[in-house]
């Protein structure tokens, strides 16, 4: 009876398998990209996670998109005027068509923005767009935005992908005007895009893109080794890079990225509220050693939140030097002498919260060891992500480490360090308060002249480097592992995948 039962089960399983479309299917001439968790929602009004935003940017055009130095680069809007501080007038490119053949007009732009702003639609983009008072089409190719108040970071809102008028919010009909159209979206499995042969800015050179969701890092690398994946960007553990270099013909390229890793501190803590203590911690951390041994040189020491590529980056801020002797001296001056010299007793004890991910725990252990050398005992506590993040937002921590990704406008400083941005009203999780910074950030938000803004944020960066509400650790480098036949892929500082429009495969040799 049992062999029959097993055969029956096997037949049933095979019947299901036969119904499933092969995940190994690669449309001829298509490029396969491996992702870790994959997008959750490709509607540009809802796309907030990195994968969703990066793939949506290939399907949907926007008015403008940040360039390499995070200035807005025209896309659907050929030009724009600012008749006054509260008005923006966009002149749209003519002849742009959605994938279904309809013309893209000002009415579609107005619809997209209004629908993202409608509270009924619960769009997560509403927060970024709340400066918009009204959006009105003027004829077929002009859109007028009226701002509630002068708002310099408006450019951040211009990268919202444009959908055709009447597109529902349930994700059932996703049509854009970008270089690729959406063919298939199976959440947690794969996303298939098809090249838009009539794209206004030149048709893509590959026939399509397949984004394959492979949660396990080892398996992503094995898929690449087998040749069923053509490109992996960033989604691998630093340790795997040397193995890939040895065991495959991978073409590996890396470039400076903007993802910023920092050490957050609770400034209401009786010890950490001393600036000298924060500087001592900063001096006690040997970033170079962590980057070399744990991160395998996939990062560079950071001086602050904005990377050197950013238009508002302040080059006068010097990197923090690793100097344990100075750290000890600063701790002595702050009133925390070492009770037994080089003996086992610490000056004080702090806790460091992190997630349970292997790499994070290794970094935490390295920090613990380095701080111990200057007499600070660090108790490392690893948590599941949701619990960790909830604690960070509540201010329930001494020290933690997180990274900021996707920073576009320097107005982010307002969310992180203005005294009005203490949670739940923002992300000033360390409870930093400085009236001088508050005033500068308010000016930076309403100053429409770019040069003046650069000066304001330069000053902000200098003050923060002195006060150290965050200790900058490193900027991650972006790394791409590609099959050797792949041509034309460019790494962007923010990790976007927009250059997939230009990639191609080299013809087979011989």
């Amino acid at each position, binding site marked *: 009876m049992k062999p029959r039962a097993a055969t029956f089960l096997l037949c049933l399983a095979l019947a299901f398998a036969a119904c499933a479309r092969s995940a190994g299917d690669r449309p001829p001439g298509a490029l396969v990209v491996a992702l870790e968790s994959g997008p959750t929602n490709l509607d540009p009004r809802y796309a907030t996670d990195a994968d969703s935003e990066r793939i949506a940017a290939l399907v949907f055009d926007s008015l403008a998109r940040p360039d390499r130095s995070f200035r807005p680069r025209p896309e659907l809007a050929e030009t724009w005027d600012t008749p006054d501080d509260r008005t923006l007038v966009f002149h749209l490119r003519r002849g742009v068509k959605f994938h279904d053949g309809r013309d893209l007009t000002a009415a579609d732009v107005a619809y997209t923005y209004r629908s993202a702003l409608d509270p009924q639609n619960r769009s997560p983009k509403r927060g970024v767009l709340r400066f918009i008072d009204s959006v009105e089409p003027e004829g077929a190719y002009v859109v007028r935005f009226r701002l509630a108040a002068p708002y310099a970071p408006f450019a951040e809102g211009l990268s919202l992908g444009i959908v055709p008028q009447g597109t529902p919010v349930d994700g059932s009909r996703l049509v854009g005007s970008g270089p690729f159209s959406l063919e298939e979206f199976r959440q947690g499995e794969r996303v298939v895009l098809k090249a838009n042969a009539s794209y206004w800015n030149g048709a893509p050179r590959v026939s399509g893109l397949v984004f394959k969701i492979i949660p396990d890092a080892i398996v992503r690398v094995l898929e690449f080794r087998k040749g069923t994946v053509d490109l992996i960007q960033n989604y691998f553990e630093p340790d795997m890079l040397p193995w890939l270099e040895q065991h495959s013909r991978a073409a590996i390229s890396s470039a400076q990225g903007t993802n910023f890793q920092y050490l957050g501190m609770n400034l209401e803590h009786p010890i950490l509220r001393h600036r000298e203590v924060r500087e001592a911690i900063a001096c006690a951390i040997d970033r170079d050693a962590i980057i070399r041994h744990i991160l395998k040189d996939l990062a560079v020491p950071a001086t602050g939140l904005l990377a050197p590529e950013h238009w508002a980056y302040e080059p006068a801020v010097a990197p923090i030097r690793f100097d344990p002797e100075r750290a000890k001296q600063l701790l002595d001056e702050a009133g925390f002498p070492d009770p037994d010299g080089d003996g086992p007793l610490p000056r004080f004890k702090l806790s460091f919260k992190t997630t349970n991910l292997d790499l994070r725990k290794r970094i935490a252990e390295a920090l613990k060891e380095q701080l111990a050398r200057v007499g600070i005992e660090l108790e490392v506590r690893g948590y599941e992500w949701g619990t960790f*993040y*909830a604690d960070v937002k509540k201010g329930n921590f001494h020290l933690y480490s997180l990274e900021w990704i996707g920073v576009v406008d320097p107005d982010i400083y307002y969310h992180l360090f203005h005294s009005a941005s203490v949670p739940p009203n923002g992300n000033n999780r360390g409870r930093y308060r400085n009236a001088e910074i508050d005033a500068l950030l308010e000016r930076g938000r309403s100053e429409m002249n770019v040069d003046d803004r650069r000066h304001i944020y330069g000053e902000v960066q200098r003050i923060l480097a002195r006060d150290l509400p965050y200790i900058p650790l490193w900027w991650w480098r972006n790394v791409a592992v590609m099959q050797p036949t792949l041509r034309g892929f460019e790494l962007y500082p923010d990790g976007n995948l927009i250059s997939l429009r230009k990639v191609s495969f080299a013809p087979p040799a011989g």
Partner: protein
Amino acid sequence: MRRFLLHRVLLLLPTLFGAVTLVFILIHVVPGDPVEAMLGETASSADKAALARELGLDQPLLTQYVQFLAGMAKGDLGRSLYNQGSVSGLIAARIPATLELTLAAMAVALLIAFPLGVLAATQRGAAADRFALVFSLFGLAIPNFWLGPLLMIVFSIQLGWLPVSGRGGPAHLLLPALTLGTAMAAILTRMIRSGLIETIHEDYIRTARAKGLDERRVWLKHALRNSLISVVTIVGLQFGALLAGSIVTESIFSWPGLGRLTLQAIQTRDYPLVQGCVLAIAFSYLAVNLATDIVYRLIDPRISYED
């Protein structure tokens, strides 16, 4: 039998109710805020408060619980907080993949365990028995997160016979089914072996032999059938566990099943989706247990469920 079935089906309701209640409490007790995850970090407190109000998350937990039960009674499991899709639709989309993997893993386990278990029992102490013992030890000791990549390296990379991961045709199914089925095969091999050895000393076996039945018939017809009850129990329990989703195997093989969906829902604090997944998992467990009870009756006609 009919009365028994009715009784068991009625018992399903309080069990499901208990499971759903427990998960409702747990998911609301652990830290995490779905509203901020939905609206993003730049949302104003007013927007966050408005959305929490709209979703009913500002209500006392008891009110939220009653509303959830009322929706469930109407067959409405709600909508996912993140991708706007209906919870029942999202779960239904994952069930074929989960069933496919579970059935194949079960088939692999049975195909390995039965011949090996019978061989080990009939040739006790011989090489086949020792091999079965070693296989069982390894099968139980090797974790899936190690076995899966090992099989990939051998069969996909070195030999190039099979795809590495993903769901597709039968070729995609083989490695995950083998990974998932090996541990179960190890358990079943040992159970079949010990069950057979115990049964073979029973009086009716001696009688069968005394009647002049050939050894093959004695082992397979009389001994094996009577030693199956405990095996069926384990198969039933394991089948339920596999249906609930083998998170590790699904993650390694990029298998889009219910286990991965549940894990993602928990990580993102997608309350309606977590609750829906748990309901589906609890239901499949109970359904498999019920099926196991029915199979007992088919295997051993002496078992009666009538009073």
